[in-house]
């Protein structure tokens, strides 16, 4: 229990250091653009592949589960949209990105720690925490919501394609279902969630890497710890945010 409080304390102090005034805004802007590419744009492919298949799978499953003359077919499109919007494109995509981006951040910063690159920055007088971590946080918090919107669209498109290809339902019914009872707040709720999850993934992974010690084995452990911790905290915050924003 003591170790948990110690970790929370160290994490808070690190975040205080991260959000202190940057040395030179121009350099940070350049680094943010670099991180948008490294952490955001490079995740588009993975997000697209997973979203299209999940969207298609949800549509298939719904068509099997809702196969009844008493249930209108457009509900399949409606269920696909709701699943993608409310949970998959924010929470599940965040869990996937925790694996990809989180382990990347933890291993990058952990390697910099054990090869004394962070010490070198400190010696130069650079606030290493802010220089290394702040651009990653800003990049992911601003870019991940776009990934979520992209995931929603491509997942829904995946459902449409499978409906057309397999002929399980009339495409017009699917489209009708997508438009049925559409609440904009659900999309906003999803975007708020992914922004919070982006902060969780980046800051926790950076924390695990920043305090890595020893050798390459420890960097590997820090990377695993980053993914596990981020995933657990994401699940907890998913509940909290749903309770706060949706009920």
């Amino acid at each position, binding site marked *: 229990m003591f170790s948990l409080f110690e970790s929370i304390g160290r994490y808070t102090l690190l975040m205080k250091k991260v959000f202190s005034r940057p*040395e*030179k805004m121009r*350099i940070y802007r350049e680094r943010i653009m670099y991180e948008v590419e490294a952490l955001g744009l490079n995740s588009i492919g993975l997000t697209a592949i997973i979203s299209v298949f999940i969207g298609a799978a949800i549509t298939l499953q719904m068509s099997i589960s809702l196969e009844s003359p008493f249930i209108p077919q457009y509900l399949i499109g409606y269920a696909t949209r709701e699943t993608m919007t409310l949970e998959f494109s924010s929470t599940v995509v965040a869990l996937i990105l925790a694996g990809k981006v989180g382990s990347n951040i933890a291993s990058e910063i952990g*390697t*910099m720690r054990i*090869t*004394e*690159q962070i*010490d*070198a*920055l*400190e*010696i*130069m*007088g*650079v606030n290493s925490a802010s220089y290394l971590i702040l651009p990653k946080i800003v990049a992911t918090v601003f870019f991940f919501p776009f990934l979520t919107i992209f995931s929603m669209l491509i997942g829904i498109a995946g459902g449409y394609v499978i409906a057309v290809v397999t002929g399980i339902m009339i495409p017009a019914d699917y489209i009708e279902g997508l438009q049925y009872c559409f609440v904009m707040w659900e999309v906003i709720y999803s975007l708020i969630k992914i922004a919070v999850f982006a902060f969780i993934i980046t800051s926790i992974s950076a924390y695990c890497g920043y305090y890595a010690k020893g050798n390459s084995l420890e960097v590997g452990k820090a990377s695993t710890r980053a993914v596990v911790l981020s995933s657990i905290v994401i699940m907890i915050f998913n509940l909290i945010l749903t309770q706060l924003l949706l009920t």
Partner: protein
Amino acid sequence: MIKAQNVIKSFGDRTVLKDISVEFATGQTNLIIGRSGSGKTVLLKSLVGLHNIDSGAIYYDDVCFSELDFKARKAIRKDVGMIFQGGALLDASTVAQNVKLPLDLFTTQSEEEKMERVNFCLNRVNLDNAHHLYPSELSGGMIKRAAIARAIVMNPRYLFCDEPNSGLDPQTSIVIDNLIHDITKEYNITTIINTHDMNSVMEIGEKIVFIYEGNKWWEGSKDDILHADNRELEDFVFASAMAKRAKLAVK
């Protein structure tokens, strides 16, 4: 001048530095020598502020560095250059970007002025054609030379080197030693080098401090070291059979 006064540093129950007092003069290559695990890296990292000392004081000229807060230390750090054992170049940046980073962050120079300074420093360490190379594309000696270029780009008054020759062949080691020595003289820098390479000691050691089990055991010049009446130092200096035979031959 850099001065350590009664410096004590512990990690848990283990006291690594035991009341060390030593002074390093300006314009000299000062060497800290000692066996692996003797505490010389901890001393160097304490001097540079990467470790906070338990008690005692560290002075940079007349300023008590160990009592300064983070902000005040930051001002002094702009006068500090450090060469790490593995070079510690940023992997994601090219050699030129690594050398230019301190200029980008702490000066208001134009891009042309910065590149002029970068070119000058890379030329000084004979790395004229390595601007666009990444650290993974460099040899061990080139990494050390790029690290030296980065360390001197801000015209430091204090230069710290943590085992600058480790992993290098004897010829490249001499090149690196001479480079550090020449830069020290050229810019009148207070240079402190942490090493266990006896070639470095005999080549460039103007002041040598021998650390043994966390204590300052001996200090003197490279001329004194051969005649020092100190068993632990003798064991360290003449550890190899060849060195022992050479000493006997001199006697």
